[in-house]
């Protein structure tokens, strides 16, 4: 039996050690010039001049506006934003789910063995990944700029823009979540002759449901925020209202809108927590 007193030379040193040290050094060496190029100088924030300017800007935001006609407008824009984000997410889901289903390697039947058609199937998976990449490579605000020209001002363009860009994001992350859960159950089902969709439902989704739900709600929250940026290019909702308030230098209205955002994010957080609990 082995004794622990004097280990043989082969185990005297962790073979992973040099790779780890090298990786850390390479990371720092690569990061430093990136910080310099991006003009990252946080200390300027605490410069007296900078502080003065920020204080002046923020002072205009208080107190939040509570004028009744503005509040009615705010409520309507909030509903519009929520509708835009929700419809956009629904569209994104419809795009993402089938593409993620095709792109997920853990559901490949031809990889078992490997069996017949393994190269063709790998090609199909790669194409699905490529489509997802193209969809998400163009930011939603650019999609919105293009679509506003085609569909006219209003939330319709925002919905479509969100659906396309977020469809690409959701699809990629869905397939990665499915890959990173335990894939053995799905594999065992495929090995016992079940189909892909059934292996997804019985083998992968039960393990990944929490993760999939909380990522989807998080993306919905992002869609609410993204709708602001898209409002600036004329796609309606809270963003368009924010744009108008900022242009009229009405800080009180702007801060009321920001408070609404805070509430929406809190709401999304609550939904996410409740869903995770339900799926636990």
């Amino acid at each position, binding site marked *: 039996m082995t004794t622990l007193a004097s280990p043989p030379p082969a185990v005297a040193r962790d073979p992973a050690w040099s790779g780890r040290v090298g990786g850390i050094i390479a990371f720092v060496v690569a990061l430093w010039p990136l910080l310099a190029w991006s003009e990252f100088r946080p200390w300027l924030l605490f410069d007296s001049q900078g502080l003065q300017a920020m204080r002046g800007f923020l002072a205009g935001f208080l107190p939040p506006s509570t004028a009744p006609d503005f509040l009615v407008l705010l409520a309507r824009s909030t509903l519009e934003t929520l509708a835009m984000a929700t419809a956009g997410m629904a569209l994104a889901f419809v795009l993402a789910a089938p593409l993620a289903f095709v792109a997920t390697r853990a559901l490949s039947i031809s990889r078992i063995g490997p069996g017949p058609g393994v190269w063709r199937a790998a090609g199909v998976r790669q194409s699905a990944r490529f489509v997802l990449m193209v969809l998400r490579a163009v930011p939603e605000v650019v999609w919105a700029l293009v679509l506003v020209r085609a569909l006219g001002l209003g939330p319709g363009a925002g919905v479509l823009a969100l659906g396309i860009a977020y469809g690409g994001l959701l699809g990629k992350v869905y397939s990665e979540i499915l890959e990173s859960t335990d894939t053995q159950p799905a594999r065992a089902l495929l090995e016992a002759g079940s189909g892909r969709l059934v292996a997804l439902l019985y083998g992968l989704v039960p393990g990944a*449901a929490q993760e999939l739900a909380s990522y989807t709600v998080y993306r919905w929250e992002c869609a609410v925020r993204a709708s602001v940026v898209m409002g600036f290019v004329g796609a309606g909702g809270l963003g368009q209202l924010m744009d108008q308030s900022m242009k009229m230098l009405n800080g009180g209205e702007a801060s009321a809108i920001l408070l609404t955002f805070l509430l929406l994010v809190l709401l999304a957080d609550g939904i996410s927590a409740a869903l995770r609990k339900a799926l636990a």
Partner: protein
Amino acid sequence: MGFTLSGCGLVHANGHRALEQVSLAAVQGERLAVIGASGAGKTTLLRVLGASLKPGEGEVNLLASAPWRLAPGPLRRLRARIGTIHQQPPIPPRLRVVTAVLAGRLGRWPLWRAITSLVYPADMAGAHAALAQLGLGDRLFDRCDRLSGGQLQRVGIARVLYQQPALMLADEPVSSLDPTLADQTLAALVAASERDGATLVASLHAVDLALKWFPRIVGMRSGRVVFDLPAGSVTPEMLSALYASEGGVPPVHGVDPHPHDSAAPEVVASPALQPARL
């Protein structure tokens, strides 16, 4: 029917050779135990028999068809007739027992039935019957993460019993069970194979269980079949040679041959290992 492997060799992606010139055949309904030290290639052999690993060399014939020459559709239908009991039950912990057992027939059910069964279990009576054979009838609606390791292992077996395959493969099916349960569980597997006329191949770490329940014993070492004999013809010398890498002591169910990693102790006498056979 049955199966035939001829001259099968397999090298894993990491370069490790797991099977070398393995030839093995069984007629439909035969029962074989595969024994050997860990790393001898038992799991790989079962995966080749399950059409889930394609050997680099040699010919495979399962249930009268050559899986690696089939088109995807027929290959899937062939796989639906092969049931594998995995060493680690491949069951998501959040699944309910009833769903985990019904999943055994997903290869045969039409898609609509598989999907509606997620909403309302399609065949609760069938799942209950499979579980009852293993003494788990009362756990039908429990979640799998509420079960102990031994119970989960039996749920994995119930899934394959419910599948009713023509070729049943079991990779260390009783490794998490105490001796009494291990005996009952093997009895249930043997009964199912007799009832359905299914071929049963089980890899077993415990030699006593193999000799007790299986008429034919296949000994493996370093990826090769070193003997393939009726249980009555297996001699203690053959077993010591087979387990030479584990100190030459054939493992017995429920007895750790290396407690505290000290020198191998005397094996506690087990009825199955005593007379004539060892």
